[in-house]
Every structure is written in structure tokens, then in C-alpha cells.
């Protein structure tokens, strides 16, 4: 073991923690604290070379304390990373909730989810995502919590939401490059919808490639300015879902006589999906496409051109055994470091006793040059 590394905390977390402590010890608190602990062992192997790749042991504490008009929630994680031989202490989530008559305020490190899609993202842009991560149990585990302030205001028809978030830690952006966004969402008879607008700094794969080609040291995070929305619709055995967003002045790479240049262009992204429930199965099909608006010559897209996923899930033995099969295809632009990928991602989870859970899976790359990996995970909750 080499070091104990603490992931940097910023002022927002400090303010949250201090406010929480003041609230805890100066107000008359009703309600009880809830604490649960989890130990997770995880190992991943190279499927082709049958070699160990990575393993870690993680301790996670969940602390919830509800009081009259709010809640305090902390989830720190202590992880031993065998590859780096480091102990990492990370505040995965930590926030203070304040509940008012018609509004809720959440302040601190949090995951905020927009949209109806599973695994693929169009408008779910608030939180940064892990990259180069080893196989994950659930695709949504890839999100990294943001330090943010979220205000929800409730009306008879739905919820108005306003978000202010600090830039992702990995971005090294200044706080004046913060993200902000607004959402209106409603659940209704047979139909739910969201209307969203915002600007959040997001990792840009194309800029990363460009920097590597040109030796540039440009930021690889750029603002995503968008308006969009989502819906889900009950059609009996089916649930139809969709997302769409119009992005303004997105950064793209354009090949010119002087070499590659960064230019801005608009893009429309659309996702359509269907969840089908035949008997004990859940079959989920999703397709996402991006369309450049008034595409100039020699413009190269960032991100994927299209993403398509098929998921088949079934539970056995009173939901104790769950089996998921994902097939994901990503169509990428022809840029260095980018290639089409077809991934088969089966997952198996077995719940031994409400405390002990075993999970295993494979990220098998059928098309593309990425490494195929297999993993297993053992989780104990107490």
C-alpha cells in the first residue's frame, strides 16, 4: 500500500457539511438516523489473455438522518485499488435536503437524472461519466456525482426544477464554467413528459482526439447548450419512450486547408425506445441518432453518430436471481481513436440472503479493438 489519497472536496461540500452539523445540533430533530454499510469485492480479468486486470475492495457507508423539514444524506466510500496500490477516500454522494411547503432544496454532491432512456443519454447531461471504466454492474453506475444546488418547485400539474452545478472535478474548469439547467416534468394518465433546457460542461471525445493529434492543450470539456425533452407512454404490454434535444453551437472538428479546426454547429439528437413485458421477461430496445443541422463540408461529428441497444432481462427464484443480456452498438465517426463498437454485455446477479449478493458479467467486444473483460463481484450489506 502506497498512499491514502482523498479525492478533493470543494467549498460546496464543506458548506453542506457545516450546515448539516449546525442543523443537527441546534434544532429539535425528529426522526432517527439510518446507517447501513456495504463491503464490495470486485475483480476483472482479460478474457483473451486470461490475465488479472484489476481488483478492488470497497467499503461504503450510507448515513441518512431525517428531521422535521429535511434530510441529511452521506455516502462516503473507502476503496483499495490493487492496480494503484492506493487507498482512496471518496464522498460518492453527500447532501442536505430542505423540504418546504411546495418546494425542496438539495445542496451538495448528488446525482441528478433527466430523461427516460436506460444506458443511453440524450438529455441526461448533468453528471460527468467515468471513461475507460472496467465492466460495471449497471450502465447507470457510470455517472459521477456533481456538486450542485437543485431546487424543485411543485405545482398541481408537475415539477419545476432549477439546477446550478459546479464543473466536473476531472475537467479542471474554473467555477465560472458552471452548469445550469431547468426542467418541467409531469406524470399523468398514460403519459409522462419532461421539457428541459440547460448548459452543462461535458467531456468531448472529439476534442480529446484533436488535442492528441495536434498536441494542443485545449480543454476537453465544452458546454452543451440545449433544449429538449422526453416522454414515456403506456401501451399495455409496452412502454414507449423517447428523448430529443437540440444542441446549439456544439464544437466539431472541421478539416480545412490549414488543417483541422474547431468550429461550432447545431445538432439534433433523437432517441426512441420501447420496453416490452412478455410474461416474465423485459425486452428493451433503444435507438439514438444524431443529425447535424446545415452540415458544412468536411465537418466531423463528435461523440457517436448512432447508438443502439437491446436488453433482455428475466428474474428467477423469487427475484433472487436476475439475468440481463445487453447488446450495444456504437457507430463512431472516422477519427483517430474512434471506431465502431459492438458489445455483448451479459450480467447475472444472485441475492443470497438480502445481505450477500453475487454479481458476474462479461463485456465482450464483438466488433472493435477494445479488450474483452470478465468480472465478478461480491457484496455484503450490514
Amino acid at each position, binding site marked *: 500500500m502506497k498512499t491514502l489519497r482523498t479525492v478533493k472536496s470543494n467549498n460546496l461540500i464543506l458548506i453542506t457539511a457545516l450546515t448539516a452539523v449546525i442543523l443537527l445540533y441546534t434544532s429539535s430533530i425528529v426522526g432517527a438516523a439510518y446507517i447501513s454499510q456495504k463491503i464490495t469485492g470486485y475483480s476483472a480479468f482479460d478474457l483473451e489473455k486470461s490475465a488479472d486486470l484489476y481488483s478492488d475492495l470497497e467499503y461504503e457507508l450510507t448515513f441518512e438522518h431525517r428531521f422535521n423539514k429535511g434530510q441529511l444524506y452521506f455516502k462516503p466510500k473507502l476503496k483499495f485499488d490493487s492496480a494503484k496500490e492506493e487507498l482512496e477516500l471518496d464522498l460518492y454522494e453527500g447532501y442536505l435536503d430542505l423540504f418546504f411547503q411546495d418546494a*425542496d432544496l438539495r445542496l451538495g454532491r448528488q446525482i441528478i437524472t433527466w430523461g427516460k432512456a436506460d444506458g443511453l443519454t440524450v438529455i441526461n447531461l448533468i453528471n460527468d461519466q467515468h471513461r475507460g471504466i472496467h465492466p460495471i454492474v449497471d450502465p*447507470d453506475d457510470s455517472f459521477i456525482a456533481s456538486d450542485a444546488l437543485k431546487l424543485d418547485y411543485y405545482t398541481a400539474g408537475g415539477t419545476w426544477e432549477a439546477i446550478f452545478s459546479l464543473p466536473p472535478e476531472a475537467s479542471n474548469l474554473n467555477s465560472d464554467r458552471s452548469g445550469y439547467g431547468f426542467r418541467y416534468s409531469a406524470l399523468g394518465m398514460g403519459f409522462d413528459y419532461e421539457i428541459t433546457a440547460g448548459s452543462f460542461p461535458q467531456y468531448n471525445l472529439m476534442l480529446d482526439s484533436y488535442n492528441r493529434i495536434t498536441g494542443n492543450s485545449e480543454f476537453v470539456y465544452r458546454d452543451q447548450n440545449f433544449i429538449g425533452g422526453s416522454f414515456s407512454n*403506456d401501451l399495455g404490454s409496452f412502454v414507449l419512450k423517447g428523448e430529443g434535444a437540440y444542441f446549439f453551437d456544439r464544437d466539431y472538428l472541421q478539416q480545412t486547408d490549414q488543417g483541422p479546426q474547431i468550429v461550432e454547429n447545431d445538432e439534433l439528437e433523437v432517441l426512441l425506445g420501447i420496453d416490452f413485458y412478455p410474461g416474465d421477461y423485459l425486452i428493451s430496445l433503444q435507438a439514438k441518432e444524431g443529425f447535424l443541422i446545415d452540415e458544412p463540408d468536411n465537418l466531423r461529428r463528435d461523440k457517436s453518430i448512432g447508438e443502439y441497444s437491446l436488453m433482455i432481462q428475466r428474474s428467477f427464484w423469487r427475484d433472487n436471481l436476475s439475468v440481463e443480456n445487453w447488446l450495444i452498438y456504437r457507430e463512431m465517426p472516422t477519427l483517430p481513436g474512434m471506431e465502431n463498437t459492438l458489445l455483448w454485455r451479459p450480467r447475472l446477479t444472485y441475492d443470497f440472503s438480502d445481505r450477500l449478493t453475487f454479481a458476474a458479467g462479461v463485456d465482450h467486444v464483438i466488433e472493435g479493438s477494445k479488450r474483452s473483460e470478465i468480472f465478478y463481484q461480491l457484496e455484503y450489506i450490514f
Partner: protein
Amino acid sequence: MRNKIIFTGVILLVLITAFGTALAADLSGEEIMKKVYNRETGDSRTANLKMILVNKQGSKRIREIKQFEKDFGEVDKKIMFFISPADVRNTSFMNWSYDSEQSDDQWIFLPALNKVKRISSENKSDYFMGSDFTYDDLGDRTLAEDEHKLIGEDTIHDKEVYVVENIPVAEDDLYSRTVTYVWKDKWIGLKKEFYDREGELLKVLTVNEVKEISGILTIVDSEMHNLQNEHRTILKNSEVEYNTSIDANLFSERMMKRGIQ
């Protein structure tokens, strides 16, 4: 003259008793089940549910849920908050059931995804949280989904009951038939047998305790026994309250995400 009055009284009593018996006996299976479905259950209900799942080896798993229901006239709304075990804590489930032909609306909030997700309402024959109860068994079934036939009378724990056979209208139903033992004059089921599609006895629901709460008969302890795989689910209701002023805003995306204290 006195004897005449007594005689007339006796005759009247006999007639009333006979007429009353004939009235009861004349009730059809449909009418009995209609009384069961239409029994007073209050405009709103709050309860703590404890489900004890017992497998063949006798090992137990316990699930605790806080449940709220409210009748809004044309729509009944229900929301459940999962309290334990830890791996499902803060999960919530909401159902809106309509008096019209409109399909139910159902949503689930999964804290790990931090997302309220609409799910199909066509899963009423799914087992609820790994228990021996399907969503239908827990009260989502309607009178019109079965044909009802009175097949006899019996006694359960000294209580007189009607025995009614219920045959599903839909051919693809989970059960080929069920038999309900309805407590006479109280219109509450005290036992129910469930037969699988092959006609074999699959499960038996036994009511262990009924309490009168706010004037409403309430099953507070029951057990569903799956005879084919020797699995049992004991369902206990506690802190049951009726007709309390549940805020309509409880049945919302906000509360699904926020959870309950």
C-alpha cells in the same frame, strides 16, 4: 285470544326466518362476490406491511413497506415505500387505478438510478417482491375478471362462510380457478384456494386475524402457502388507519423520490 297472538307471532317468526334464509340462500356467487368487492374499506388507508418470506428449509426474509391508498372518485391511488431490507430501501412504487377502462398507470423509483420509471401495468400476475402474493392477490383484481358460482357453505373457526368458485374470464390467467370462503354477513374472505392452469391446488391463503378498525373489518394477519414448492408468505398489517386526511400530493413524483420518514 292470547294463544292466537302467540301462534301468529310464532308463525311470523318462522316465516321471517325462513324468508331470511331463503333470501340468503338465493344469493348468487356473483352477488356474494359483489358484496365482497363493494365492502366498505374507507376512502383512504394507511398501513405498515411486514412480509415474512419462509422457504422450504424454514429460513426467513423480511420485507417492510409503508403503504398509502386514497380513493379520488374516478381514480384510486396507491403508493408504497420500501423500508427494508437495505438493498431495496428508498425504492418506491406508485399505482393509479381507474374506474374506467383506462389501464392502470404504474411507476417505480429506483434510488440507484435516481429515476422514476414508468412500467407496464400488464404485470398483475407477477409475484410481488418475491412473495407468494401476486399484484392481483393483493387487491388489484376486479369483479368482472372472474365468473362467480356459489358451490356450498362451510364453517371456518366457528364462522359460517359461503364457498364461491371464481373462474377467470381470461384464458391466459395465472389460475384456472380460485375458491373463496366468504364470511356470511361480513362479506370478507377468510380463506382462498388458488388452482394452477393444470387444475392442481397451488396456493392457500389463510386469514389468521381480522380486526375492526374505525368500524372497518381489516385483515391484519394472513398467510399465503404455496403447496407446490412449500414456500410461505406471512403478511402482517400494523398501524392501520382509515379515512385520515392523506394529502393528494403524496401520490406524486416528488414523494416517490423523497421517500417517507
